[in-house]
């Protein structure tokens, strides 16, 4: 089967075909944010999407070995052999694109537990996890910032998941993990700085909306009760590295 040139159409094709095979796939990353956020098409928040990121559960991961080649994808054999229980890489050689599949949890600078949250949304991860999947990155790039701004601009922040960035869930995870709390807090500040420096061409009202929602998230983070372990780790502070190092996979 050949892949589709349009990335969004390809993403929808894969999810739909996977459902027919009883394979669980949810989208995350920039493309998932685009699905939820009309402002991702705004001229100043628009960006290119080079790959599709999916998350799946452990039982579906085994089925991908047959499913994805049928869909026109080639595995990164070395990577999948060595790390395929946590992460898999597949290539669309025809279109020069990549599929990145997280299995079980999402692990980058911090680990986000996803097992109980995979079925909240039919196509993507819930908005709170989409927010965290970007906000947990210590070395944010411009695309990450644009994705986060689009997501926050288009969604209210509150205590539920219904087209809302669930601040209770974010605060709960950050209250358990001082490292995650620290990185997310830094990201919130970076977003504010990005807006203040005029790096993005938004209306003043839009800027204020984003800033108000960032404050709401920050307030939720600060108000959530913290454990003794969290407080002890906070005393050590950033003198000790609080996140995992992230690298890129070299294809050649």
């Amino acid at each position, binding site marked *: 089967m050949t892949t589709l040139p349009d990335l969004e159409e390809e993403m929808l094709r894969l999810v739909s075909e996977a459902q027919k095979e009883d394979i669980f796939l949810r989208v995350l990353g920039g493309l998932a944010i685009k699905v939820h956020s009309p402002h991702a098409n705004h001229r100043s928040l628009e960006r290119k999407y*080079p790959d599709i990121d999916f998350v799946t559960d452990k039982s579906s991961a085994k089925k991908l070995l047959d499913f994805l080649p049928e869909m026109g994808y080639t595995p990164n054999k070395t*990577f999948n*052999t060595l790390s395929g*229980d946590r992460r898999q890489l597949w290539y669309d050689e025809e279109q020069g694109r990549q599929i990145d599949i997280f299995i079980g949890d999402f692990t*980058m600078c911090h680990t986000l537990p996803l097992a109980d949250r995979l079925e909240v949304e039919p196509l993507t991860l819930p908005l709170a996890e989409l927010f965290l999947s970007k906000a947990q990155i210590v070395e944010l790039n411009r695309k990450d910032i644009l994705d986060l701004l689009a997501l926050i601009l288009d969604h209210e922040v509150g205590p539920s998941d219904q087209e809302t960035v669930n601040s209770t869930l974010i605060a709960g995870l950050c209250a358990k993990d001082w490292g995650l709390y620290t990185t997310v807090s830094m990201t919130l500040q970076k977003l504010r700085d990005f807006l203040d420096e005029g790096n993005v061409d938004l209306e003043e009202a839009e800027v204020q909306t984003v800033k108000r929602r960032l404050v709401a998230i920050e307030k939720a983070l600060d108000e959530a009760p913290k454990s003794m372990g969290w407080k002890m780790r906070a005393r050590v502070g950033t003198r000790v590295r609080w996140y995992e190092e992230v690298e890129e996979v070299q294809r*050649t």
Partner: protein
Amino acid sequence: MSGEARDTTLFLRKATGLVRSWSVFDAFIYAFFSINLITLGLYSFSQMYYFEGGLLPALLISGAFIIFEVVVYAALIAVMPRAGGDYVWQSRILGGGIGFVLAVTGWWFILWLWVPLYSDMLRQLFFTPLLGILGATSAALWFSETALGLFVSAVIVCVIVAIYIAIGMKWYSRIQKWCFWISVGALVVVFAFLLFGTQTSFKEGLETQATALFGASPGVYDATVAAGQEAGAMTPLWGGTLGAVFLAIPYMVFFNLWPNWGATLYGEVRGATDFKRNFWGMGWALIATTILGGVFFLLISKTISWDWYMNANGAWWNFRWGYTDQTPPLPVWPYPALLAVFMTPSRIIQFIVILAMSAWWFGWSGTVFLSSTRVIFAAAFDRLLPEKVAEVEPRTRTPIVALVLMVVPSLLVSALFAWNVFNFQTLTLCSTLVIAVTYLGSTIAAILLPYIKPDLYKASPIAKYKILGIPLITVAGVIFGGFLGFLLYQWLFDPNGLYGIGLSNISSVIYMLAMYLLALAIYLGFKWWRRREGIDINKIYEEIPVE
């Protein structure tokens, strides 16, 4: 001004980042266990009872040379941090034939011989002392002395290692970490016993405990001295001529030549392109182990007495190697941790300390096959082995075919070793020799890298390290290569008749030649087969493999 130009604090990551399975600390623990003081160390020290050179200077001098090995490997890893290590470097720098033959023999075939050695250590460190402490003297001695006891241990080793490989790198690192902390804690306790004990309390403890636990006859202390002297035990702690000390080194490196044992795994270690990190990950393992080894020697000398320890070793190995029919007065391997806990009458304390000390074995045992799997995978990805070899069973994540290729021949070699067919028990040091040849291949590749692959070298993070204008990797390679040359000369020609695996040992020569010929046959066979399929293997070797 565009946004791209202004936000200079942002990063240029192209795709979703990856967190590799192992941290540098995990790599350090793997290296620390690979030059395992308690398993490999005590095992080889105990066999070195007949040398004239002091073990302490041999430990220090060999450690000084092996630091250059760490430099060579840290640099090679930084240039090409790929799963498969030696195989990838040699095949890309020196050529596919050399890379395949040396890597497959040194990282795969010879590991079959390591299984009975790991098994021997398992029974002497774990089954025998613990069963003895539990009062099961017959079972303890059955494990310790019989060929079947060794073979059963080999089967258990294969099962444990298969589980380790199946659980994946993440879980392996967790278990390894638990074992690390437990084993270090246990060693501190053993050191405390030796530090606060006296030679009198040791002698009393030995007389009481060895008779109660293992059925030794009264007067075991003096009888051991006599048996050791008869065996020719003489190795000093400190002293001997420089030449005599150097002659002890080819035996000692059975234990400490392996801080780079994780080299094939560095495709899965974070920040592996950082030379300094790689260096310190392995270097600290070597330094810490050397210091701990020196401290252990001094404490043994203080409380057990060095001469008695060497006599006990002589008595044991003289019997095990068949030079005498007389069962040694101490009928079990003289395991210093066991000797230390003889100074307490408490069975519970004895049991807990010896059980905790076994974490040295359990944290290390996965090394027998784990590194090898990566070499097998890398060769399979290069199409020099069937693709099936690199397949992982989806449910258990176990590379079943690769495991079978390691386990089945290992059990066969273990049987030959256990029942000493074809004199297999004399081949212990072959396990080191063949790997040293592989290391020599990588060392030559390292020496030549800046000149054979200048573009790769100049683009690498190690290009800035030079000594008097000569690349550091070349300088370190020449020094370590010279050291390996000395070791290989001594092993192969053995002018003083000290190692027993050289050209004078027919079993040794046949075994090693058979392995190299098998590797060469596989290489030529698959190259021919792939050519028939339209695949030019030489083209594959022109490219660095993907991650």
